[in-house]
């Protein structure tokens, strides 16, 4: 039971990380109609910038604004220099251009930082674990990630549902042309949305930096799962990204943790392991297929 709870927390923590990335991606895709494969690069840039500043200054907390600024500024630059030319083009051109950006960013980071992964220490205040239940110690830093993710979710909810900007964003996701026709400066809105998405990716990057290896290509590792979250949640829906992120995080973790063991009780030998790992690793994609069969536009489809 305690093991199950611990795995549930692990799933939740993975889920909020997915949410932070998917929130930006779903907004960009939903509102601007752009497939941004380079979203993972923004995550990587956040992680590298934050880690570098943290290492130079000795303070993890100073790394956070650095990560946010670096990711957001890169986001603005990408939007102004590349993405802006792609709004009218079809998805294939966007995929090609943003894939090119991935290669450029990966090579750029390799040139600046080299191929060896970077390392940050955990902030001293969160360098331990707390006993949330008797016999269940859990790393404080991972609890911090969960809390930060939930806070961002709340903040985004308020921003999207309670402010004028949020109203424009929602309107943009539902019907882009109409928003433009009503005289809203859609270009400014696009830039703001892209910057916000980049900022969230940068936040995810610096949050992940102390627990993962900060390395070239780290963005692509998580990008695929992020796209699955966007598709399951419904393109353009923050709420969808939140629900789907948590769902996927928990499902993936629980499958990986328990399926091989369960199958081992039903079957014997290496087949159980092979099958268990196989199903666990395709678990999130299976989930996506099932959701798409029942709800082709995702759980929380925006517009019609």
């Amino acid at each position: 039971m305690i093991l199950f709870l611990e795995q549930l927390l692990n799933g939740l923590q993975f889920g909020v990380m997915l949410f932070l990335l998917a929130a930006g991606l779903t907004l960009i895709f939903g509102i601007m109609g752009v497939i941004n494969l380079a979203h993972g690069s923004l995550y990587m840039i956040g992680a590298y910038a934050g880690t570098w500043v943290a290492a130079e200054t000795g303070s993890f907390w100073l790394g956070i604004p650095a990560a946010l600024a670096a990711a957001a500024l890169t986001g603005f630059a990408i939007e102004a220099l590349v993405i802006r030319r792609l709004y009218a083009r079809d998805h294939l051109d966007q995929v090609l251009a943003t894939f090119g950006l991935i290669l450029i960013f990966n090579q750029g980071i390799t040139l600046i930082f080299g191929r060896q992964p970077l390392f940050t220490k955990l902030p001293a205040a969160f360098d331990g674990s707390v006993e949330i239940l008797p016999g269940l110690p859990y790393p404080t830093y991972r609890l911090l990630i969960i809390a930060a993710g939930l806070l961002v979710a709340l903040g985004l909810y308020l921003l999207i549902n309670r402010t004028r900007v949020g109203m424009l964003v929602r309107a943009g996701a539902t019907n882009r042309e109409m928003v433009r026709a009503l005289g809203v400066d859609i270009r400014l809105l696009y830039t703001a949305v892209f910057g916000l998405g980049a900022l969230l990716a940068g936040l995810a990057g610096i949050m992940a930096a102390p627990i993962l290896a900060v390395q070239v290509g780290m963005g692509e590792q998580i990008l695929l799962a992020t796209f699955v979250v966007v598709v399951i949640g419904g393109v353009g829906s923050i709420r969808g990204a939140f629900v789907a992120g948590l769902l996927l995080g928990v499902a993936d973790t629980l499958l990986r943790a328990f399926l091989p063991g369960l199958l081992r009780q039903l079957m014997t030998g290496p087949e159980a392991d092979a099958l268990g790992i196989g199903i666990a690793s395709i678990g999130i994609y299976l989930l996506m297929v099932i959701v798409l069969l029942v709800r082709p536009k995702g759980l929380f489809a925006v517009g019609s």
Partner: protein
Amino acid sequence: MKKLLTAASLLALTSLPGFADPVKIGMITTLSGPPGYLGEQIRDGFMLAVEAEGGKLGGVPVEVVVEDDGLKPGNGLQIADKFMNEDGIKLITGIVFSNVAGATVPEIVDNDAIYISPNAAPSSLAGADCNPNYFVVSWQNDALHEASGVAAKKLGYKTAVALAPNYQAGKDAIAGFEREFGGQVTEIFTSLDQTDFAPEMAQIRAANPDVVFQFHPGGLGITFLKQYQQAGLLGQIPMVLSEPSLDGVILGAVGDAAIGIKGTTHWAADFDNAASQEMVAAWTAKYPDRPITTYAQQSYDTAKLIASAFAKTGGVDDMDALRAALKSADFTSTRGNFAFGVNQHPVQDWYLTEVVAGAGGKPEVKTLEKLRENVGDIYAAECKM
């Protein structure tokens, strides 16, 4: 017209093996993505030996052509075909990962080119499918991890959790560890692109074994060790690791937390033989900011082996002579004892190491004692060559 063509081609033929032309050596390795530093170590270790001779190996001028496989077996295969068919390369080396090797090596050796592995040595190529064109300078995958099994048994542990990614080298790793450990082992397979090991940490804590053995090369290993420490397991459940999970780069990234971890290796930077000291000094002079790892050492040895063969054959023109010269392994390895077994995989010694606080404030690997002497691998018996 026909005569003219014949004359021209004859001319071309005679001018081809000109003495000034360097011998091309193809290097397929993983330079991009998270494990990119492994390929970088292999490339730079090889080049260190080439540059020490002023662009020659065994007195023969060489040109090393490097291509990145991106850890994709399909890429490896494509590059090998390009090397052999377009560039006319007869000698290839460099592959880091066993899944790339598994797809690429058979293609190379079947086309009568020679492949010399500086790292990956999957069991699938070591036994019945061994080949006269296939040499391994590093170790056979299983043997690498058998040493950890021997160490864990010697340290008195009875139960273990063994973790490795679900691919050929991972399976070889766990099989090798179990073979020599003899105790009760819980196997957990991870994946090569995994970034979060929290579920595995929970499973380890629940199983509460005497010792944890894990094989996670490159960035994976950094992530695993960091998360092991953050989960509060590092002081609680001891670890015994094979060398790829505890290389100099991983140590640098994990820092003091790694102190006390036991490892096993065929070579460490503190070896006091002259060949090793010469290599480490050259590396430190050239790359003061980058620790030298076993990947670079294996690749350096590979270059030295090629040099010893070239000194006898003068190049790749006589492939039979080259094979014989390589097989005799007539070079001074940085690891000390070295010979090829029947399947042309190394027969060598294995050592127990421990991570200690180093002089410069950074943790270092210290060699404690010799664990095994002159051992090959169990697949050699199945090789009929």
